[in-house]
């Protein structure tokens, strides 16, 4: 589901992002987000708050990929991943689902829809519904 166009906010020019690294950004309501430009040219945004360490650091995590066979699917697919710089828990960057909780509880993260228009990165002002966990107050 894509958010209505009027709820997107311009963050920065695409070229300001560093390939395969994250940048922290602020939404108008003060929410901190982490924005990533991946090797395939896609841009992703998730919450900056690391639900495991409680610090605002996810933009400083490492990106990568993970081969995943989702339920009901036969073929493996490659999903983009993000690992926390604190304790290395890993999420699916496109859905916020936990891939590796490091043996602890699964704490998914909020995902924000992103659109690149005219070379500008736009991010939704609210998280995609159904992403993130209820108890994690960023």
């Amino acid at each position, binding site marked *: 589901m894509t958010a209505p166009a009027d709820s997107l906010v311009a963050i920065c020019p695409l070229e300001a992002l560093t390939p*395969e690294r994250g940048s922290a950004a602020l939404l108008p309501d003060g929410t901190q987000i982490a924005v990533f430009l991946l090797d395939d040219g896609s841009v992703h945004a998730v919450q900056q708050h690391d639900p495991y360490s409680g610090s605002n650091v996810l933009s400083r995590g490492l990106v990568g990929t993970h081969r995943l066979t989702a339920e009901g699917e036969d073929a493996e697919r490659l999903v983009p991943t993000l690992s926390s710089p604190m304790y290395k828990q890993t999420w699916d960057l496109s859905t916020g689902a936990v891939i590796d909780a490091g043996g602890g509880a699964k704490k998914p993260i909020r995902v924000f829809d992103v659109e690149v228009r005219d070379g500008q990165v736009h991010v939704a002002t609210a998280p995609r519904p159904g992403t993130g966990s209820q108890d994690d107050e960023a």
Partner: protein
Amino acid sequence: MTVPAPSPLVPVRARSPLDGTRLLVLGGGMTGHRLAARLRAEDPDGDWSLTVIGEEPQRPYDRVHLSDWFDHHHEDLLSLETGVWDDPRITLVTGDKAESLDRSAHTVTCASGTVHEYDRLVLATGSWAWAPRAEGKDLPGSFSYRTVADVESLAAWVAERGETLGREVRGVVVGGGVLGLEAAAALQGLGAHSTVVEFADRLMAVQLDDGGGEMLRLLIQDKGIDVRTGVGATAFRPAADGAIGTAELTDGSELPADVVVFSTGIRPRDRIGREAGLAVGERGGIVVGESCQTSDPDIWAIGECASFEGVCAGLIAPGNDMADVVVDRFLGGTRTHSRGEGGTKLKGVGVDAAAFGDVNAMTPDALEVSFVDPVHRQYRKLVLSDDATTLLGGVFVGDISLYSQLRPLTGRALGADPSAVIAPEGGGDALAGAELPDDAVVCSCNNIAAGAVRHSVNEQGCHTVGAIKECTTAGTVCGSCVPTLTKILNQELAKSGIEVSRALCEHFDHSRAELYKLVEEGGQETFTEVVAAHGTGAGRGCAVCRPTVASILSSLGALAGKRHNPVGRQLGSLQDTNDHVMANIQKDGTYSVIPAMPAGEVTPEKLLVFAQVAKDYGLYVKVNGAQRIGMFGARLEQLPEIWERLVAAGFQSGHAYGKSLRMVKSCLGTNWCRFGVGDSTAMAARLEARYRGLRSPHKLKIGVSGCARECAEAQAKDVGVIATHRGWNLYVGGNGGAQPAHAQLLVEDLDDETLQRCIDRFLILYIREADKLQRTARWVEEYPGGIAELRRVVVEDSLGIGEELEAAMQRHADSYVDEWAEAVNDPERRAKFVSFINAPDLHDKSLRYVIEREQIRPARSEDDPADTFPTPLAAKEHALAGAAQLSQEDQ
């Protein structure tokens, strides 16, 4: 019907046969300790009391490694597991001596006058150092070599005598057995010249055959120790000041002797038992049977004071076994003591010699197969049954790598062609497939059989040598069986199909070492190239392989002299935040700033700049474990401006954030310290300048101590360097951390250049071959062939790669550039240090600080929000204002 569960407040336990028993052990040595530890472990809930009385002032210590005292200069490092003394049931009395035993009253009276009652008594009084009758043998300057007190007074005497005489001290060691050779090496280590005088016609006459003794003589002489065999000392003459001065030998010759150490054998300390009327052996010692009970059913005897089958054993392994037997018997068992084919290994001398079983082929019709190479100083001999199938004994001098594999096979089929086994090239391979029977004792010190080791691998999940050691205690005393443990481990893992996957992650099937080699040969320079050439398929890596590849590319680049900027654009996206922003992330997401302080030196001028920066930002300041000062609490966007000021003052990056050299710790060395014998500070600065910035599989720490007092704790470092009067001793594979390891001695007596070359070689081998995040301690432990093989590769350059490795390290040193200086002068890099890409003037407002012990710390949820501040500076200023107000009120 339900049975009520036992209340947890009233633990239910089986009655112990020892409940209510008062146990008394005379003798605070290794066997006494063993007995206490074993009883505690076997009967954790038993309601008994155990008192151990030791004459020495120390807690029981590891006498086997007495010579290590010269390296550590501290008896604590010899201490045996001390947890046993915390058991409320166990009492240790030190510094008191049992004087008499009253068997009918069941009491023991001590020198202090204390009377101890017992229900069961264990004699573990050990032995005393016997010295032959010789005129003048009690002159000042004559020592035995048995206790910590002995070695302490020996060291003090040599130091004092050297000062008095103003020349090299000349020592004579009477006795060329294992202990005598250790004493000779110790004397040499103290800066004295030493001569070993042995009455028999060869060294280690009890353990070695003629051929082995002769090879050992060459090796000992190679070390600069003189050897005189076939002669005894008949008398000692005083020097002008009354101290010992000259030794007269049986052949009429004389030796200068400023210090004499007697190591001519031991005699059981059986007086107390003898006077109480216990049966005593012909050659001394309290007579015991296979239950270790004496002629009095309430008294047992273990260790060197006990005579079993007419023999008092002077080794720790039978002593430990006897302690175990007594504990088993106390608890109602039927275990019996037997003397296996013990083996002996020379330690602490820097020369390898070991033997076991029937070394002199006394078994009727026994066959001997030997290999002698005087050029390379190697001697190997196997003794076999007349049909050449059963192994009866073996002698190894110069190269003892086969000893630990073969000793457990004593009395069993060798399973290979004996001449192939001892052949010079790849001899051990002849045994490669052979398996030890389950009941073959692998670790003779702790009496652990191959079956128990297998059990730990298969049933208890021990998949590393370290885990096996912890679980079974095998390999924890003398360590000589570690290669065998490794072999059993690998065999069992292969058998059970447990593939210990060394694959990095889903993106690479290779281990780090394999990938390193592939990239080195393939010449890939970016992650994209590496993953395309060696990866498992499409994908962009993960938090495991990306930093690993970054480290490999960075190491290879540096060693090739083509500097990959480790934190530049090319590798930047691969690295953890620490390496990427060249600072260590802290729990609140801020960073530490820890500049290098080579050798721990810092000028007041630089220190002022450091202090001013910390003050201007309100940062927390602490000296860390690496002999460096750090400031903590800096936000990402503050790092370039902070470092700009530090770089301008002459500070460089300390790489505290990297898997790289963290520091070279040193003591004061010779410039200031009155004890220093080598300039450890200058050497530390030199080594840090050479290895700084080198990326490695894990962090690296180096220590340099200026004398054997070892204030830099070099033996707890990956690379440890200790000065002696003859140069530098090099240790490798030490570690603090969660699994501490003592570094192992790699080579002794190096000059500056050779030291550096050895470290070059060692570090590059480690970087090439270690697994991801494997410290040198584990790498050295698991090195195929052990420290001896590593020594051959590094010191003797057996692979002929030494020069190549040194040249590579030179290229690294030549291409080194300070990462932070580079970054602060690069506007594009600096621009990446930004709080929010769309709001660079704002910062994370969830950060809060409080004051603790006059400095900041991150606020915690339980802190009152009213006491917290949004920045370190605000917190600090509030604290200072508060302090000022208080002091005004005081006035």
